[in-house]
């Protein structure tokens, strides 16, 4: 039992098999993709495995502390940044195998030509709190 983050990247993941930018799909293919994503989330709500899903804007800024009484330093956005996160889904599943299975299904969302994107999703287990019973 545990929570997993399915991380989707704008950039930084290995190239997908069906790697065509969305604005080069047909409008109907985009609709089919959105429907697939929504159906997937709805199905996981139904099985009690869905926790959260969010999409992120590609525009990001790096920020850091710059010392007492000074405003934070900002940098970016960087055109050359290697890794840009597009969004995530959090699932709560019984086994690691189930998490793999669901990530695989999500990666099969249809893209250009109506064929699966085979997109690489990053699967990351949550570090939870320590168990009450430890021995």
């Amino acid at each position, binding site marked *: 039992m545990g929570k997993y983050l399915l991380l989707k990247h704008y950039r930084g993941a290995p190239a997908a098999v069906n790697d065509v930018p*969305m*604005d*080069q*799909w*047909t*409008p*109907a*293919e*985009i*609709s089919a993709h*959105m*429907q697939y*994503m*929504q159906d997937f989330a709805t199905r996981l709500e139904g099985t009690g495995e869905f926790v959260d899903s969010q*999409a992120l*804007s*590609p*525009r990001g800024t790096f920020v850091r502390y710059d010392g007492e009484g000074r405003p934070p330093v900002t940098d970016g956005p960087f055109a050359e940044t290697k890794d840009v996160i597009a969004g995530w889904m959090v699932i709560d599943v019984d086994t690691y195998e189930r998490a793999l299975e669901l990530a695989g299904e999500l990666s099969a969302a249809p893209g250009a030509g109506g064929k699966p994107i085979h997109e690489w999703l990053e699967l990351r287990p949550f570090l939870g709190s320590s168990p009450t019973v430890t021995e």
Partner: protein
Amino acid sequence: MDEALLPTLTPTVIGILVRRGADFATAEDAVQDALVEAVRGWPDDPPRDPKGWLVTVAWRKFLDAARADTSRRHRELRVEEEPVPGPGEAVDDTLQLYFLCAHPSLTPASAVALTLRAVGGLTTRQIAQAYLVPEATMAQRISRAKRTVSGVRFNQAGDVATVLRVLYLVFNEGYSGDVDLAAEAIRLTRQLAAMTMHEEVAGLLALMLLHHARRPARTGPAGRLVPLAEQDRGRWNTRLIAEGVDVLQAALARDRLGEFQAQAAIAALHADASTAEETDWVQIVEWYDELVRLTDSPVARLNRAVAVGEADGPQAGLTALAELDPALPRHAAVAAYLHERAGDPVTAARLYTEAARLAPNLPERVHLTQQAARLNAQLRGCPEDG
């Protein structure tokens, strides 16, 4: 028992407690506790006099809280002898609550939360769900808001404009979770309009009704945005449109124009057209001129450029657009639209892709990507299929 009645009684009951001498923050908590008890108990054991029940239970909870507080601070409690208010005062109390909850010292997010709880009678849990934050976070936001306004006298005259801004924010949030915030905003604005003769309250109510009327036609499968020109106008709610137009006409007749009335007039002109082609764009441009004059808002100028593009042709729209700052939100989307109409699909496709990258929410991003995809498919010579 009609539980929909519960939220409508909330501001009245808070008003009664405050008139009996309770401070607003404690009274509001007491009424919230009474509401939660009512939601639990009423379905099985409905009271004969719902308002009387709420007043009694909330007052008891207030006294419990005040006594606990008093014994901590060793202070006398002298509020029990206060007279019960007459029926005429309930309206004033509710109006005062609107002002207090939208007080200028509050941040917009706090004013919204406090208004939904104290005036709207929603529970903290419902508000938290609607705004997708944890319940504890929302509870803290509300109690901080109440501390912020604790020094404000309850009978102080407020500014209607601040209340309208809060209600407008609630309306624009749409709906998520199990609370329909747009419908809630309409209920609260309707209630406010019944208590005041302010033209802009009527203007905002009309604006909400006219936009709400189009909601069934605004989204397609999988939450897809359907732009105004493509909406199935048969799915617009004609009852809401008729009410919105009536409310607006009565407001305009008083001849004190404001930004919400102008926006509602634009919405009414759209509602008036049985097809997109019949839209009276010339009049819409005139109303945008009014809106720009009233607000000097760059967003109004941007929307005006679209209307000019429809009334006088895309080149005129692009000329109007050229005067505006390209950093404005949705500037690229408007530019894309006008370039396509001006017969430049290559520029339009590039701008739609750019606009999608800058989109502030997911449905808009998908919609703009769809537009880019449609043009790119045309440019490749593919048959249009979306």
